[in-house]
Structures are given as C-alpha cells and as structure tokens.
C-alpha cells in the first residue's frame, strides 16, 4: 500500500520519494560482542504495531526524518526531523 509521509521540510509527499531506514535495536540481554554484531547485522525486530523508523527523503530535501508508524494499518502517528 502506498501512503504519504509528512516531510518536515518539503510537506506531504508520496512514499516513493523516500528510502527506508530501520532503527536497529540490539537488546541489552545480549552481552557477547560477536552475538551483538550478528544481531545488528541480520536480526530484525519486525514489530507488529507502532514502531519508530527512519526515512531518507531521497527525491526531496535529502534529509533523514524519524517516523512513528503502525505496521498493522500504515497509520502515521508522528514525525520528527533528525540530522
């Protein structure tokens, strides 16, 4: 499903203008450095529900933004710019 992302710099634009970036979270319970690297490289939280993620506005302002989105219904909860 295609949806729109409210870019803080450019206004609301179609998702096709953006590149997805995952926020990788390695749980603190993993302590072994090798296992932490493995987790960071390959494992995904793959959450079902509200989740924070980053999008790069490749065909616009060329800035990253942070988005809170519900992966069950594509509802966008809020956005914030980051550098």
């Amino acid at each position: 499903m295609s949806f729109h992302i409210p870019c803080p710099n450019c206004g609301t634009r179609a998702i096709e203008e953006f590149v997805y970036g995952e926020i990788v979270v390695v749980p603190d319970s993993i302590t072994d450095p090798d296992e932490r690297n493995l987790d960071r490289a390959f494992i995904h939280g793959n959450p079902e529900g509200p989740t924070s993620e980053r999008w790069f506005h490749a065909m616009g302002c060329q800035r990253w933004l942070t988005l809170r989105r519900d992966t069950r219904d594509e509802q966008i909860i809020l956005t914030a710019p980051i550098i």
Partner: protein
Amino acid sequence: MNEFIERNVRLSWHAAKRSYEVVIVGGGGHGLATAYYLATRHGITDVAVLERKYIGAGNTGRNTTVIRANYGIPEAVRFYQRSLDLYASLEEETGRGITHRQKGLLWLAHSETGIRAERARAELNTAFGAGTEYVGPDEIKKICPQLDMAGGGVWPILGASYHPGGATARHDRVVWTYAEGAMQRGVHIHQRTAVTGLMMDGDRVTGVETDGGPISAGAVVSAVGGHVTALASMAGLRLPIRTHPLQAFVTNRYGLGFDPIVSSSSLLFYASQTAKGEMLLGAEIDRQPSYSYRSGHHFLQSCGHRAMTLLPFLRNLRVLRQWTGVCDMSPDYSPVMGKTGVEGFYITTGWGTWGFKAIPVGGEQMAELIATGETPDLIAPFSLDRFARDRTMADRGSAGTH
C-alpha cells in the same frame, strides 16, 4: 463438467485432542505439505495442523502461482528443481487436479549487462539440473509473439534466458489437495484455532497454547507466514526476518492465448495468463515493512506502466481485482528452514516471494527432518544458523520478484 467446477474435496474435521506427536502451526501450503509428507512418506499420522483463519487464507492464497527453478546459486537450483518435479507428479500421485500447466519462463535482458546475467543464469541452471537456455530476439518473438521487441523504444529486448520447466498451478487446489491427502490418512486440521503461546519445559518446546486450550506435542513446527517473528520470540528466538507487503493484480479475460511466463528484472514485473484467461501481473515488494493487507493505486499505475512497455496489448484490458500478501523477507533472499537450536521446535520461514514454488519440496524435506531427526542435505544450506556461520545464501538477483 469443466475444470473450474470443484469436485467435492473430502475434508474430515475432528475435535482437537490434547496431545499430538507433531503440531504444525500454520495451515498454508508449507504446513499442509509437511503434514501430507509426514503421513505419506513416514507413516506419522498423529499430526495436527493449527490455522488461525481457514486453510490457505494467507500467502498461499495470495501468491501469483509461478513455479520455476532458475535460481542463481547451486543450492537453490537443486532445491527448487526438486519442487518442480514434485509439482509435476502431484496430480498423478493424489488423483486431484491442480491445473498444473508447464508454460516455459522467459527472463528478458535489455542491456549488455542483462545479457551477461541471463547467459550466466542459463549456464548455472543447466549445470545444476534445471534446464535453461539463452535465446536471442528471433526465438523470443516465436515463444511470445505479443512482446514489443523495441520495448517502447526505451527497453529493447536483446535476449533472454528461457526456462522451459517454468509452470503455474492453481494455489487453492494445491492447498486442498495436500489437506485432503493428509486428512485421509488421519491428520487433524483445526481451522480458526490461534496459537497464543508455546509451552516450554526448560529449553525445550513441549506444546502450544491455543485459544481452544493447551495442546502438548513431541515436536512443534512453525510454518507461519507473516507473524513468525512473534511466534519464534515465544521460544526465545530472534529471527533475521522482515515482513513486507507484496501486491498483484489480474485483468479481465484476454481472448488470445498468452503461453509463457514473462519477466524482466530491469523493469521489475512479471506476467502470465491464468487458466481462466485473465492476465496476472506482479512486481516487487513494497519498500516499507508492514503487515497491512491494503492495496494501493500507485502500484497499479507503476506496474501497469512497466508491463505495457513490453506488452502493449495490455492497454486494451481492464483491471479486475488487486490484492496484497505479506512476505517474510530474509536478508539473503533464501528460505530459513530446519532446526532452531531449541529442542522440539522446527521452523520453515523466510519464504519471501518464493514460497509457493517450494511448497512440495519444503513439505517433503521438513517431514524428513522431523521423522528422522537428521537435516536432509537439500535444506542443510538454508539452516537458521547460517548467518552466525557466515554462510549466507545470497540470491537476490533471481528471487527478488516472483
């Protein structure tokens, strides 16, 4: 009677027992095929398949039914070729029609680089048992006269790899065939039964909690599509899986025959004709991870535009319906199957956009693993621990779309 009228599928329903030898979570193609091969090949019939909705409600009922073996790494070519062979003999084995049609698959090249990739694909496939040959424009035009060889002046068709074994089958019938075959041998299938948790005894999985009560099991198999991360986390596992939506659509009936399956990795679309005559088109996964089944107009617009570049006759057709499935994508575009490191818990996931074509071989190999306790050679390269061993099975170039 024609082939679109169903003969009665003989499914027999039973009340759930409190204990089974094997419990399979997920009543899609892979779960049902695993149950079928456990019953037919290994005589293990004390098996339950638990399905949250109805059998085939998930991606098995939403895919675009392409069966092919022209993959990009030796391990995958061997694996999918076995599936191709099992599909070809499934109607004879079960006495049920699955509308299996061998059509041949054209993978088009539009550039010098594309030609090199398709030549390499043909060589590799042939060497590992999946017949594929490189064909030039004259042969392509003979195989598929509808193609605009100039590609609208932008995407000229310079060559292709032709995989004669490429086929399609009707997905619902594959589900019913495996379900019926398993049930006739005593396997229980429980629809509208959601798994809410796993029963653990120390590090060992000993059963499942369902909304109909707990069921204990000697072995639990996750054949879940879409929600596998949540299920695996109940066993303390973290998976290399991200779930993305994939959309497809069909047009109204195209009166003339369209024989092959046509795909282009430069234009990222593929097209085939269903048994009813509809043109079936699909493309790549949506870019955002999501569990949403909603479809969008942008996909119709972009996929339709790309398809019409090569197949101008599509202009005269209308879109009948559109739908979405969710794909469990693995980092290396290969499946993840086998033992998990948690005793009593097996997994078959990472079926991304290539799950339907692997249903028979996935079921057969998982059944062998559960029955013997030994990982069969064919699926050993696809084990979950390959990421920790730095042995990824990277195959994005040939698994990315269909």
